[in-house]
């Protein structure tokens, strides 16, 4: 398996956001290690069209730039395609489109992706396949009632081949989760719905890979990794700031962000 360097992912996220002059940077930076772990050594995918590939749903679709960068680093899309992000006549918009290489499901409307993933997991079971389904959700996304419909279904049907990675960065579009709909006890909530819950540092790739490679995918419960993450991870002025859910960077901010990412690499 080819490892993916999170610093390189971050630098591409900054470059593409700056070139396209778009936001959602903080959300994209938040899930970099989750994607590096999944696409580095966990997801089984012999080819993009392999029906037996594991399925992945970026339920928090607004962080799709992170996904596109990982696809580029894996060689699934070209640099030219990555450079079309948020341009004209491209499949690479802010939110993932399933016709785009590597994307299994369209997302962007909160609270749908975990249900898609539950369907993918149930399909694998009905077909007697070892395929698994993974989804990345956000803590804010757990505001949506439909998330809990899916959680109940997966718990009831013991979909142990389903794993949700909950990107707990404590922020949502217009406030901190603790101030909007407090998400402090998400671990307890998911456990109460019948899920196997593990709390983990969402920026520790080795720990994530270890945990993801040791989950019991043929057991009796679906898995929730409650990943503690930092919104805007790696860029000091973005970390924990609501502004960076939407704002694009100016030249000065871009320069500083890149410097910090490169320094973090050294």
């Amino acid at each position, binding site marked *: 398996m080819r490892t993916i360097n999170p610093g390189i992912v971050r630098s591409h996220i900054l470059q593409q956001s700056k070139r396209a002059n778009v936001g959602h940077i903080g959300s994209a930076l938040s899930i970099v290690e989750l994607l590096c772990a999944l696409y580095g050594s966990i997801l089984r995918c012999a080819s993009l069209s392999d*029906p037996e590939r594991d*399925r992945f749903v970026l339920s928090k679709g607004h962080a799709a730039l992170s996904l596109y960068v990982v696809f580029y680093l894996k060689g699934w899309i070209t640099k030219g395609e990555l450079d079309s992000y948020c341009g004209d006549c491209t499949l690479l918009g802010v939110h993932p489109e*399933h016709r785009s290489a590597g994307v*299994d*499901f*369209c*997302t*962007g*409307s909160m*609270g*749908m992706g*975990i*249900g*898609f*993933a*539950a*369907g*993918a*997991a*149930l*399909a*694998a079971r*009905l*077909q007697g396949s070892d*395929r698994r*389904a993974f989804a990345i959700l956000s803590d804010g996304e757990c505001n949506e*009632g*439909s998330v809990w*419909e*899916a959680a*109940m*279904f997966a718990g*009831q*049907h013991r979909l142990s081949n389903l794993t949700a990675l909950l990107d707990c960065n404590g922020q949502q579009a217009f406030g901190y989760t603790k101030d909007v709909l407090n998400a402090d006890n998400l671990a307890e909530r998911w456990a109460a719905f019948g899920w196997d819950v593990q709390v983990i540092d969402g920026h520790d790739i080795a720990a994530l890979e270890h945990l993801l490679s040791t989950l019991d995918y043929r057991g009796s419960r679906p898995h929730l990794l409650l990943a503690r993450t930092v919104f805007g991870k790696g860029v000091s002025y973005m970390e924990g700031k609501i502004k960076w859910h939407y704002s694009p960077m100016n030249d000065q901010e871009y320069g500083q962000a890149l410097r910090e990412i490169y320094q973090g690499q050294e």
Partner: protein
Amino acid sequence: MRRAFVETLVKLARGDSRIVLLTADLGFNALEPFVQEFPGRFFNVGIAEQQMLALATGLAEAGFVPFCYSIVNFAVLRPYEFIRNGPILHRLPVRIVGMGGGIEYASNGATHYGIEDIGVLRVQPGISIYAPADSAQTETILERTASISGPVYYRLGKDDRLVVPGLNGHFTPGCPEHLVVGRDLLFIAMGGIAVEAIAASRKLAQRGVSAGVAVVSSLNPVDRTFYADLLRCYKYIISVEAHYINGGIGSLTAEVLAECEIPARLVRKGLSATPDGITGSQAFMYARYGIGSEQLVHAALEMMQ
């Protein structure tokens, strides 16, 4: 049509292992034949219509053909965005089965009316829409549309005994069935309410008015050339639907008349105002909303004055 739906689905499922049946906790005393024959292919997802559609999307992506069953408004309105972002955007063969179209659940009150389902779905070019008029046509339509590669919505009636005279299970995809040929006026009706139009046509005949009847079962896609050719045969047209007059076949007929420059007069009969809370039997409600046979007779005579 409920029994015809289940019996036909069981028949289809015997030959197609991709078919699974999901329900959002409805279908007691109806879905059991499927459940008994295919227990491993049936899932009651709970009272969770959004999850039903999301689950169906994930299943269909992996090769299944999921049928999602509920009462019309719960099947269409509650999970509408899931229908759009799921099977429609992904172009997947999910089947949405809405039971009790119109005001069949009349005495249940306004929360149970399915009176805008066609309107909200017909604006989506990516979903096929069928409203069978009776049990025999339900069987034909299910069989004839089984291989459609994208999503399908079936608007069904729950009355198993309803028979539309002269229909005999006929179905031509995209085309209305011209059941009664008239000279003066055309009733163009969506689904089972065609029986009211036929009754009105018979009453009008006694008064010397020759009223034709066509039943529309394909709402999307529609063969507009065929539809226009039918409308061209008449100077007076009354659309009849247990649906709001906006968005359903009243609107469809107006679109075809305008786009094809057909010089006919159209009156749209159906619901035109938000329900006011008064309930009763379906017959009472049809009369109240002007779509029972008596009211259609009056509408026709008034129009032709």
